């Protein structure tokens, strides 16, 4: 046993297995377990998983070796040979750290946050199951295994969004999330089919080996496959046109929003594209689509975020927008930057969600559970005096999100904008413009949120403010740790313009992009990532950095001054209700996209189903068959008569069956 525990092949299996075991314990026995032990099992299992992951990751960094776990054959049919096998390379290793690390903090936070819930054990069981599925998604060594995790996290998301299932909007939101994701999964499956029939395998290693023989820079089939996969990514990572489920998903408990709908699950689409970067480099057209969809989503969601009153909805649209940024980077072929933004975003967005959860939790004491007022920014204000830690940490998170210089989001978002800037073609220009506009929105709503929640005068129920209090330590600690990460994560990859060469993040991931980049460089494609930075490039980077810094700081201060003062808030309200009424209502109603989908897709399908049902089942069967059954019987008797033409074999048959049946029936009647 001890020997086994030293084998990385085995330890890697334990990383996802720990939360699975936690899920099984809580799932089977949780109802009868004490609250404390339920929480301990859940937190213990994920923390243990984090510890094991850390030891693996350290050896991964120090020895630069990828680890493959022991395997078990899952499906073997013809050329298809899928194993349950995990693979920790720099990319999946990094994601494994994020999932178990942020996951552990959020588990610990939930001990306090969910403390009053009757279904405490059920919550933790689902949360553990989620971590298992997410780790399978990240660590699996084939697309099929990724799909297992992909749908698994979808299931957990469904279960957790609808966690308080007695309330119909919650279960509606859960169902919507699952179904919209299934639309994406439809694309994912088609992508897998195309890749399989092209390469005869779905294993990353074998796909990469197959790709070595492909020389075209822009193959039709690979473009098609990549676009299909991108449909899947749009579903999971909430991009246009499939983003509609994510804002609704905020119906779930806030730790869920932090873990699943901000830090980990929704980044699965980004991970998938980065994982398959060696294929995507051959699909220039598909990459262009990705960049454009990402840029549009970043801007579009950012504008909706400007006007939301619900603190979680602001953050939800911001997540959609930030995911758009990551897709911009992917679309420009700058994969490591996308992962970098994924990494920093995981910290500051989880932090912001947990902070908002802390606010909601403290207000719900008085307002009651599920009261929408506890999430309404317009009914908050001045909370910084009551909740200093929450305020301070959320401030750090907001700075990260807004891209204030020297906070983590600044480094990663700036790198994305710079990548677009450097492209110097029409696509780069469009993407850069949309990205910059989205960055303006981001800075605005971040500090609108801070101003509305923590500054000015309290605007809600007096009693709620009087009883508002800092959250318990189990919630404070994760906030504190995440704040440190949200500030510091950006320093793992300093821009070249700084003059200091410190890029451990990029160095770590470099082997992942090797094959794809080698191909691009050989083909002299503009998609290839720059290796050396010329003097002019450094200047351009400085210019870009200056522009985005000024924008971020300027807009942040502007938003903050309006929303932190009662007078400013009044004036802003008058403005949007008067002169800017029409665009305001458009944004407030999220461009009416839900309504459009309802009219264009949901209702027609339902109507068509009902009509078909009536036509076929009621009219066709009841009218034509049942009322016409006399005809039918007549017909069948004609057939039967035709059979009786003196064929001995048939008589014999009828005799045997009849006799056997009669015998049994006769005996039965005894």
């Amino acid at each position, binding site marked *: 046993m001890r020997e086994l525990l030293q084998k990385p092949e085995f330890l890697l299996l334990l990383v996802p297995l720990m939360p699975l075991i936690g899920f099984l314990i809580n799932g089977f026995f949780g109802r009868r377990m004490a609250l404390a032990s339920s929480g301990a099992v859940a937190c213990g299992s994920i923390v243990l998983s984090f510890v094991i992951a850390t030891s693996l990751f350290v050896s991964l960094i120090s020895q630069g070796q990828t680890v493959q776990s022991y395997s078990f054959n899952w499906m073997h049919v013809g050329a298809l040979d899928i194993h349950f096998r995990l693979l920790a390379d720099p990319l999946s290793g990094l994601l494994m750290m994020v999932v178990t690390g942020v996951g552990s903090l959020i588990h610990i936070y939930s001990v306090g946050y969910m403390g009053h819930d009757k279904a405490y054990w059920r919550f933790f069981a689902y949360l553990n199951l989620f971590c298992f599925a997410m780790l399978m998604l990240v660590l699996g060594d084939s697309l099929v295994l990724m799909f*297992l995790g992909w749908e698994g996290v979808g299931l957990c998301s469904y279960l957790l969004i609808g966690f308080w299932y007695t309330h119909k909007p919650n279960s509606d939101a859960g169902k919507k999330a699952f179904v919209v994701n299934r639309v994406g*999964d439809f694309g994912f499956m088609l992508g897998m089919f195309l890749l399989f029939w092209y390469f005869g395998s779905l294993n990353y290693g074998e796909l990469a080996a197959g790709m070595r023989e492909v020389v075209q820079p822009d193959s039709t089939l690979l473009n098609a496959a990549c676009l299909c996969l991108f449909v899947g990514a749009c579903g999971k990572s909430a991009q246009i046109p499939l983003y509609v489920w994510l804002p609704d998903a905020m119906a779930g408990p806030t730790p869920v929003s932090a873990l699943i709908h901000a830090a980990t699950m929704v980044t699965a689409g980004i991970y998938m594209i980065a994982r398959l970067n060696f294929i995507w480099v051959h699909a220039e057209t598909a990459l262009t689509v990705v960049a454009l969809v990402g840029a549009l989503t970043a801007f579009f969601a950012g504008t909706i975020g400007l006007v939301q009153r619900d603190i979680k909805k602001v953050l939800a649209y911001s997540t959609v927008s930030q995911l758009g940024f990551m897709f911009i980077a992917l679309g420009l072929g700058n994969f490591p930057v996308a992962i970098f933004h994924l990494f920093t975003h995981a910290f500051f967005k989880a932090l912001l969600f947990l902070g908002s959860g802390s606010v909601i939790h403290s207000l719900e004491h008085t307002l009651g559970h599920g009261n929408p007022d506890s999430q309404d920014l317009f009914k908050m204000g001045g909370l910084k005096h009551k909740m200093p830690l929450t305020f301070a940490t959320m401030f750090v998170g907001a700075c990260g999100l807004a891209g204030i210089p020297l906070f983590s989001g600044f480094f990663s978002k700036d790198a994305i904008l710079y990548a677009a800037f450097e492209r110097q073609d029409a696509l780069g220009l469009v993407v850069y413009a949309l990205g910059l506009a989205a960055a303006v929105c981001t800075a605005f709503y971040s500090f609108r949120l801070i101003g509305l929640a923590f500054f000015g005068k309290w605007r809600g129920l007096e009693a709620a403010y009087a009883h508002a209090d800092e959250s318990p330590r189990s919630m404070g600690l994760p906030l504190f740790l995440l704040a440190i990460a949200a500030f510091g994560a950006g320093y793992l990859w300093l821009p070249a313009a700084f003059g200091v060469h410190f890029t451990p993040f990029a160095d770590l991931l470099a082997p992942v992009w090797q094959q794809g980049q080698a191909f691009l460089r050989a083909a002299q494609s503009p998609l290839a990532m720059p290796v050396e930075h010329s003097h002019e490039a450094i200047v351009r980077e400085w210019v870009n950095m200056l522009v985005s810094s000024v924008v971020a700081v300027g807009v942040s201060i502007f938003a903050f001054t309006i929303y932190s003062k009662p007078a400013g808030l009044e004036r802003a309200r008058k403005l949007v209700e008067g002169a800017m009424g029409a665009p305001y209502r458009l944004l407030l109603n999220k461009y009416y996209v839900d309504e459009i989908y309802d009219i264009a897709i949901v209702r027609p399908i339902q109507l068509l*189903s009902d009509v078909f049902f009536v036509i076929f089942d009621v009219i066709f069967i009841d009218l034509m068959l049942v009322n016409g*059954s006399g005809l039918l019987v007549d017909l*069948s008797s004609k057939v039967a008569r035709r059979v009786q033409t003196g064929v001995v074999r048939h008589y014999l048959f009828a005799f045997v*069956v009849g006799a056997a049946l009669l015998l049994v029936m006769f005996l039965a009647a*005894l």
Partner: protein
Amino acid sequence: MLDFLAAAIDPDIKHHLSVITFLPLVGALFLAFINRKRERELKATAFFFSLITFIASLPVLFDFNVGAGYDKRLMETAEWIPAFGIQYKMGVDGISLFLVMLTTFLAPIIMLSSSTTVHSKVKEYFIAMLVLETGLIGSFCALDLFLFYVFFELMLIPMYLLIGVWGSDESARRAAAIKFFVYTLVGSLLMFLAVLYIAGVAKTFDMERLPEACAQLPMTAQYLCFGAFMLSFAIKTPLFPFHTWLPHAHTEAPTGGSVALAGMMLKLGTYGMIRFAIPFFPVVAYDMAPLIMTLSVIGIIYGSMMCLAQDDLKRLIAYSSVAHMGFIVLGLFSFNFMATQGALLQNINHGLSTGLLFLCVGMLYERRHTRIFAEFGGIAKVMPKFAVLFMIATLASIGLPGTNGFVGEFLILMGTFGGVPDGQWTWTLNSTMALLAATGVVLGAVYMLWAYQRVFFGEITVKENLGLRDVNRTELAFSVPVVVMIFFIGLNPNFLLARSEPAVQATLQRTLAAVAEHRAAQAAAK
């Protein structure tokens, strides 16, 4: 232990298939001698016989020699009516093995669930059930076409009675039973004509020799015979547009009847396709594949849409069967190895997951005597364990990876998408079919989650639901084995795939070779 039992029942394993086929019939005879008032004994005896049938069938599974043809050791041959070349010939190969196992596995589950749900004419009910089991196992094992037909028809009457006598609603069940009977009979009579014709020409009913004999028939005859076989199986499966008997039969049948119908009997339709229709008439089957695949795809989408129009939980699940069986037929007629393997696997999967869904509906019906959605809502609150059970069945039904449903659907879709292997992959009609069929995966999630939400989520609005008790031990006892199988197959499908691989490979190769030969002959004639 198993070997010992097997040895006790059948020392030289030679007559094993006969033993498991007729054990239920022996049980039915036993029941006939028990006083109808002693319901406990009747139920226990029926359960006992189905259980020992299952135990007796285990050696068939574990001692099965994996190979392309029928397992020689398990084969039984005896003269029956030599004058007409009719034999008593039984055997299993990789294609029928798991259908036999599914039948013997589900039978005790049905008996146990029926023991809590059947309250009238208990004796006749269990006799009918046991006769049905014999008919099913016999159909899957028969290697003589005449013998097959005897078993095939043997099932029809008990099933008719199960729906007509023990069904839920007085008037509707009669109509449903008659509809079932007439539909199935029309199909099987046409098939019988075809059987008589080909056996008359071939001078044998031996299924191992018939493919060769059928190849000699004139093409017109082949088309007609294929049509007759296919119609019968299409009704049984059911394939769109021959599905209209199914929702009625399922909705009106008692729980045990629905499970038997979905879990075992529908399988006979798809089994018939791969066992008779395709190998007997490969050229015709290949030729008709586009039409049949189109009907399957329509069935998938249409069946799913029908589910969206239901206000009755049981009828929704019945319609979902139309969609699921569409996937299976699609896989079989894609003539792709992977898809065929997936279709055979999905045949088993559908029996398990839909079987479990019907068992669950039965539990609800037992408590509330209604299946209308409007009568439910918020059930998860009062029946949490039941909610989990139903959720697992739902997930298996919508093919979540990790459950059995995923493996089947995935293999069918990916295989069909690949088309008939012929060098470099290109987009074919098959790919289009797979693309359209894959929308069924989305629709499946829509209707199943919608159904789940309407039953389990929300507040309890009907006050009768407040006092519902959760699943009891008996109910757990018959549903947990199904849950175990759902995950077992989901995580280790190779257990099944490896055993069916050579047989599927061989069948497919023969079919494609016959098609190629026919093409070559045609070209030469020109």
